[in-house]
């Protein structure tokens, strides 16, 4: 039936070096993203100080989880898009929403080729834009983003604490608390984190990696004792 000789070829269908959850919150005065700086090799905490953030232009930040090499490729592709925009010189600049849609089309095209980019990406931008795209290419605009295991552990907490008029400082505090919870329970999480803030007007700040701090292990014995039973 098929005369072509078929040789198996390798595409990313199982991630190797991975980043864990990315969190994001839309606030009254801007958007905040946060994630740790770990790229795991299986269960090994292989690269402990890598950035999972990227700023392709003023007023836009993207952050991603999943396969780290795919993430780097995705960042390069994004850069190329912005460079092409620069060369056009038509006075038009890509809005965060346009980039979000672009990434969703990119990821959808790749999944449809059965050669997916194994990532979930959050996009934050000026005008209080917050969106995420999963590896299948689903584009979602929401006030809260939590990817990976963060969907299970962080999203409920964020939903509980989010309210209209939340400031970026409060939002950041929420995200730090969520990252603490993730550090307690996610075996692929790290206590070194990075955050990005994009204000309503487009002022952008990506922090240096810093220690989460204020971790509370006093209750740990209760957990282990229970497990011993």
């Amino acid at each position, binding site marked *: *039936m*098929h005369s*072509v000789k*078929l*040789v*198996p*070829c*390798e*595409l990313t*269908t*199982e991630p190797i070096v991975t980043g864990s959850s990315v969190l994001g919150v839309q606030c009254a005065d801007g958007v905040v993203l946060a994630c740790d700086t770990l790229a795991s090799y299986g269960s090994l905490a292989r690269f402990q100080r890598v950035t999972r953030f990227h700023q392709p232009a003023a007023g836009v930040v993207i952050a991603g989880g999943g396969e780290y090499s795919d993430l780097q490729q995705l960042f390069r592709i994004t850069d190329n898009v912005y460079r092409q925009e620069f060369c056009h010189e038509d006075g038009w600049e890509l809005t965060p929403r346009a980039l979000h849609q672009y990434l*969703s089309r990119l*990821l*959808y095209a790749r*999944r*449809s*080729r*059965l*050669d*997916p980019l194994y990532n979930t990406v959050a996009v934050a931008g000026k005008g209080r834009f917050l969106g*995420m795209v*999963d590896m*299948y*290419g*689903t*584009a*979602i605009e*929401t006030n809260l983003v*939590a990817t990976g295991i963060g*969907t*299970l552990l962080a*999203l409920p907490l964020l939903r509980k604490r989010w309210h209209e008029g939340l400031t970026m400082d409060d939002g950041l505090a929420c995200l730090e608390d969520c990252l603490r919870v993730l550090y307690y329970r996610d075996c692929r999480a790290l206590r070194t984190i990075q955050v990005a803030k994009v204000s309503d007007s487009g002022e952008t700040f990506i922090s240096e990696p810093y220690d989460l701090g204020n971790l509370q292990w006093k209750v740990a014995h209760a957990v282990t004792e229970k497990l011993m039973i």
Partner: protein
Amino acid sequence: MRPQEDQTRFTESSWMSSNLGPSAQQALISHQRSWSPYVDNGGTVLALAGRDYAVVAADTRFSVGFSVPSRNLTKIVRLTDQAVLASAGMGADRQYLHKILRSRLEVYKYQHQKQMSLSAIAQLLSNTLYSRRFFPIYAFNVLGGIDDNTGEGFVFGYDAIGSFEKVKVVCSGSGQTLVQPVLDQQLAGRQKYDLPDDQRMASLSLDEAIELTRDVFNSAAERDILTGDAVEIYAVTGSGVRYERHSLRQD
């Protein structure tokens, strides 16, 4: 690696062999087990038609497994002021489908100097789905609207690869098994079988139809974990499209 076994599996997996390039086909062989290009994001969609209206409704929950990454992702697209489409199934495929349909309708508008009619949209949707017969668009569509000439309401129900049927009431998606029997009983039930089809539906006013829609979505949200958060309702009448939205259970 057992080549013989893989060859066999390839011929068996004819469901997506035709439209793909050789590298993708090879990928299919070696990775079919570990990664699937499909995911079910759940949700329920419904469309019903009366004498001079159609109602199209869907919930707004976006699920992945047992998680709900978004409580507010629309499943509905307003294609013209006479036709509204709702799709359950996979979110990414739905967004793709809605995007290309919208662009095809736009091109049609410029080429023909008129909006595409409901029946033409129905056929176009079928063709679009069938063009991916061997790598299906994982979306379960219901299309509702009013007929160009008669102003009569109609809805169309589809499967993922383009089979479609012109009906008066249809429901798809994760709550289908809960909702469809209720609709059947209410609108095409035994006690009304003695009436001709058009009279049965004609007895239902638009307000009653919307009330019924809200009821069945509330019911589905009670038992189907993939349906909930909110229901969006589009009512298509001769005077355009009306939109409303109501909360559902969020748990």
